[in-house]
């Protein structure tokens, strides 16, 4: 038991060479500390490292990079709490994106309960964009639960996403089309 624990500790404490290569020392150290915390909490560290590298490439200052990494770390933690310990890393990342786009932890919990063991990566990634286009989060969450109960597959979500994007490029209002398509895929049942 002792040897694996030592190895795990060494792994947690080993700095990522990419961070040291691309970031200034104070920023790299701050990001490494966040990554360490994430790994100890059972969260994926790679998305946090990638977020720091993204900031460096896009010319962000050190403090802004650290703030973005910390925000993602919090999002991943909230997504883990909502989606469960069995959620894969990309599903956690999609959940963090959903939260960042205006969704709530409670909405994630309800969708997880409705979807069962079905991965929510595609559903959350696609619907996060619709939140960004002005779809109210509460309405979005209720609609997504309806779609999940109707077993609408991921491919249908991607097709719907392409339809909505086409409408947006033509300059038309997106939400009416989105609502109509959702109702067609999963009609509202009269009580």
């Amino acid at each position, binding site marked *: 038991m002792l040897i694996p624990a030592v190895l795990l500790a060494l792994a947690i404490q080993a700095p990522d060479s990419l961070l040291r290569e691309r970031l200034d020392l104070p920023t790299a150290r701050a990001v490494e500390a966040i990554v360490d915390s994430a790994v100890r909490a059972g969260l994926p560290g790679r998305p946090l490292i990638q977020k720091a590298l993204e900031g460096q*490439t896009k010319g962000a200052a050190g403090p802004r990079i650290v703030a*973005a990494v910390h925000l993602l770390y919090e999002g991943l933690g909230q997504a883990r709490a909502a989606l469960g310990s069995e959620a894969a890393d990309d599903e956690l990342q999609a959940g963090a994106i959903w939260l960042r*786009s205006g969704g709530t932890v409670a909405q994630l919990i309800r969708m997880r309960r409705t979807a069962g063991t079905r991965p929510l990566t595609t559903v959350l990634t696609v619907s996060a*964009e619709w939140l960004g286009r002005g779809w109210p989060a509460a309405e979005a969450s209720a609609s997504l639960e309806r779609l999940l109960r109707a077993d609408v597959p991921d491919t249908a979500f991607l097709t719907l996403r392409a339809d909505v994007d086409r409408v947006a*490029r033509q*300059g038309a209002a997106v939400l009416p089309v989105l609502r109509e398509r959702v109702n067609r895929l999963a009609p509202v049942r009269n009580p």
Partner: protein
Amino acid sequence: MTIRLGVLAVAAAVPLAAQAPGKPARLEAPAVGLGPFALGGTGEWAGSVALGGRWSLGFGAAGAAVRGEHDWLGREIGTRLGVERSVGRATLSAGALGASLDQPKVSMAGAFLAARLTVGSVQVEGEVGQLARIAGSFAAWSGAGRPVDTLRSGPQSPSHGWLAVRRRFGPVDLAGRVVARTRLASEGSAGWEASAAFRFVDGWAVAVTGGRAPIGTSPYLPYRDRVTIGLALAPRRSRTFGSVERRGWFAAEPDSAGVVFHFWLPGIERVELLGDLTDWRPVAMTALGGGRFDLALAVPPGSYLINLRLDGGKPLVPPGLPAVDDGFGGEAGVISWSR
């Protein structure tokens, strides 16, 4: 010979595909806001002759655009209003022309037909137009300021045409134009001009133009030997400035080794992909010609954040991908695939 110094050539363009302030431009026009509008303008101080300028306003969506231009020199005005439509690599436009002279006071109206073709980094553009006098009289004029014979004996319904070729060499745009119009009594019927613009900072360029040609729409603006030096400002370095932005296309195709990314957008010379799968290092896509680019990466299936950079510009969301706030004032596209 008249030398004109352009004090400020301002092309104040609101990007056709602009998002909210602080966010990067998309490759396709968004649904709301000022995204589809582009406003541009130029100004010149022509030595001892007059102050002149030009403004243009375009509105584009769904592959078409309406564009208006208004230019003036002293009290003479030229206006045009046309409709543009992009078909593949070509842009066709047609519309109405108007011109108003000051000495004598004559108004003219007519039509134009234009076409522009972009092949790689070369752009060819041409126009023909016809004006007819609708008010005032050339023959009745006897005032000072213009050669009498030129206007009395000149055509009452002048026609014009011009052909231009532009090519981009990295940060430098070179262009040449030949102009022809109905011959006036005291002038030849052909003119020419050449220009070079150097983009030294993203959105800024210094331009030098010289030749023997009129500067505006009005057909009776005289040909003069001239040199113009100007400073241009444009928030985006779009080859289709003032007209409809072409729609790019992006796709990811998984294969046994990883994934192949495909991108298409005519008029772009260099495309770089950057994202989680490249540790956010820009990786150049292979140019296949005709605006097509490919890139194969050995990465496992999953969900990734990615951007594209076109000709060294700002990171953009690839067309068709969901976009999320990147936390740095911009957006990143999200792509995922499975075996």
